[in-house]
């Protein structure tokens, strides 16, 4: 259950940031979309909203919160499970609560506030989705939000990373069914994040070439992955000189998206926004370059032998 940021801006009187540090990572988030906004339904803006922060450490965001709950590292899943029990008046033992680092009084207070709000929203950040049990944690929080709908309106929304990560994710999903971690090595999309993610493929040295757009893995990836990028023909499309462009065999300078190249950006809540270029660039756009490369490739012999027409796989194993 999720919603758009506009819904939160308009209606949410109770906001929980779980494992995120919006004050530092998404500075515009507070002011533009969530707690600072006044609306038809919440005319006093910040005063009409309650904000809770759940995190393993006291970040800058904690200062902006009405309530800060410090959870022990790696205990998010347990804490969510306890909340799921408490909203249904199920018994939870003292030691189970003690393990999470939060007191029973705080939890009772939180449950009471969650149930009595008109529109509640969980934002969950990298802190929640990238720690131990990654997918389990976000799934548990989504379930908690779904269950809260027995009492009041509640939604949950992930806070994603920078750039147009969401856009790539959205398009990969409509073209292949999966958001990332995809391989086409059998001619159709298959998904396995721990196996087919870029970093895994590079570290294992599984690929013969790399084509990189709008990312700088040379700055962020582990050394074995970077070493492999240096070993193989790496092609990099980027408006700037980056770590990756320096190690690449080919760097094609392209126009900067949104500044001098048009396109669509997908916001964190997946709403599409047009990018309208303000400047003209002497460089081609990423799209131009990719189209020209595609055209050149299509003039080469196809990867399947002439006349062979694989149909489809009716059931995969």
């Amino acid at each position, binding site marked *: 259950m999720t*919603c758009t*940021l506009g819904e939160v801006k308009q209606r949410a009187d109770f906001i929980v940031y779980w494992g995120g540090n919006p004050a530092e990572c998404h500075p515009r988030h507070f002011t533009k979309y969530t707690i600072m906004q006044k609306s038809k339904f919440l005319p006093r803006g910040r005063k009409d909203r309650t904000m809770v922060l759940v995190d393993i450490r006291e970040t800058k965001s904690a200062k902006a919160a009405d309530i800060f709950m410090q959870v022990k590292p790696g205990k998010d899943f347990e804490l969510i499970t306890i909340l799921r029990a408490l909203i249904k008046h199920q018994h939870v033992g003292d030691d189970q609560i003690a393990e999470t680092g939060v007191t029973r009084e705080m939890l009772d207070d939180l449950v009471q506030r969650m149930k009595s709000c008109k529109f509640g929203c969980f934002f969950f950040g990298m802190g929640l989705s990238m720690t131990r049990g990654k997918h389990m944690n976000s799934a548990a929080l989504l*379930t908690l939000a779904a269950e809260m709908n027995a009492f009041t309106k509640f939604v949950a929304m992930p806070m994603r990373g920078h750039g147009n990560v969401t856009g790539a994710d959205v398009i990969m999903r409509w*073209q292949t*069914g999966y*958001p990332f971690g995809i391989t086409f090595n059998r001619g159709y999309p298959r*998904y396995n994040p721990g196996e087919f993610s870029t970093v895994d493929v590079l570290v294992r040295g599984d690929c013969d070439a790399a084509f990189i757009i709008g990312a700088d893995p040379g700055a962020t990836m582990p050394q074995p992955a970077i070493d492999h990028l240096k070993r193989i023909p790496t092609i990099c499309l980027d408006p700037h000189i980056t770590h990756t462009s320096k190690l690449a065999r080919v760097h094609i300078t392209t126009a900067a998206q949104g500044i001098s190249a048009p396109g669509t950006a997908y916001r964190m809540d997946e709403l599409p*926004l047009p990018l309208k270029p303000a400047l003209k660039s002497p460089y081609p756009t990423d799209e131009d370059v990719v189209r020209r490369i595609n055209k050149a490739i299509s003039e080469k012999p196809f990867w399947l032998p002439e006349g062979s*027409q694989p149909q489809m*796989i009716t059931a995969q194993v």
Partner: protein
Amino acid sequence: MLRITGGKIYDPANGIDGHVRDICINDRGKIVDSVDGGRTINASGMIIFPGGVDVHTHVAGGAMNFARAMTPEDHRRTQAFIRTQSRRSGLGGMAPTTFATGYLYAGMGFTTVNEAAVPVLSARHTHEELADIPIVDKATLTLMANNEIMLDQMEAGEYERAKNVVAWYIWAAKSYGVKAVNPGGVAAWKWGSDAKQMTDSIDGYNSLTPGKIVTMLATICDDLGLPHPMHLHCNNLGAPGNISTTLDTLKHLEGHRAHIAHSQYHAYGGDDWDTMCSATAQLAEYFNTHPNITTDAGAVLFGDTVTITADGPWQHLLYKLTGRKWGNLDVENETGCGIVPYTYRPSNLVNAVQWASGLELMLLIKNPWQVFLSTDHPNGGCFWRYPEIIQLLMCADFRNECIAKLPDKIKGRITLPEIDREYTLYEVATSMSAGPARALGLTQKGNLGVGCDADIVIYEEEDDVARMFSHPRYVIKAGEVVIEDGEIRETPEGREFLVKPSYAPETDEFMRPRFEDCYTMSFENYPVEIERIENPNMQECINANED
């Protein structure tokens, strides 16, 4: 250029019922009287239909893409398309990927689809996805019935302004018409409540009721002259006893054109889940006496699917019934939508009633120009299973075999066992092509007359109806042979149909402050530019109030 000779033609738009005739197609993909040269397809012993038209489906956009994200386990076990020189790779299944969607529709002889639920805010996304669905032509409907800016005008009694707002949104979203989902109910759901009856009050409004919204929006669609009338998903979807809401809704449409979406979900009697039964006879009777209204079945097929609708309250009900994972996506100021994976089982009495009700509506509504083939894909079943429904409609024996497998308690809850009607090929052609094309106001579709689009499907005649309809021998789209002997030969891009209803020029300035108050997107960024639509095809508005 192409000539098709010797086939038996079923072309209900021109009253042709199984006559052998030649069809000629020119280089512009239109049907013409005669051609010189070019390829000839010998269709002797074959059956020729106009290409299928899906009047109500969900194939693209935020909700569908959300459904894809929620069903990775289905992607793993479903059919996969391997990339070839003419075809891109993809996955079929409950929520097919975009390229696969085009291949699957065309592979079944369908050449036009209507994406029935586009939230305005994410219309840009829907169009980007539609551009990645090859072969078929597309139309989209904008979700309007819970739009707060429009509702505020209706509440204030400002009919002209409400009409301008609707027209403005249709053009801003670059769509083809208006979809109304659960009028008033979705707006109320944003606060966790619902509006179920036509006279219910709506949270946040004083005098507005679902009934008033229905009548006003239908009037607006007629006054704007939209080629497709208001496309209505009635309130109280899926609930036992909802037939009273549906009939009451229909009364609010007297004197207007309207299309009622997936009426199977709106034709139940009984008081609760234990006493739920089919009330299709009452609903069919209404259609049989009101030719101004069309509908699509929203039939249910047993098996796995994922339900995705803009009806949040119904999705929440499903979640409570099944306890399975639930995704709900509320789009600011527009509407909500929810996603639940679901399995329809013959052993489940509620599902059995749903299965029978869909077929009953198709069989009890006498005029096939009024009731169309649909499963409300993916809600009642996946679109690529339509041939199974055709078989159930055409073969009473097969139908009775299926009924025999339902639980004993089904007796007295459905009327299907008493129906012996069997669809003829002519009626199938009406229900899957000519009828929906006419209801959509797409005069060049579902019609094999001279001047129409050469979208044609050719079947090898055989006794196994389901097999015949799922494996056409040839599919021709705009004069191009796209499927031949079960293989995808060409994958041309489709077009998108748009209308531009007129609205007062000051509407922009009227919308701006309200818009900026409601949304988190800047006003200038909101309307989808015409350049963003792949192969736009403008359709004219009509005079809908004449007859």
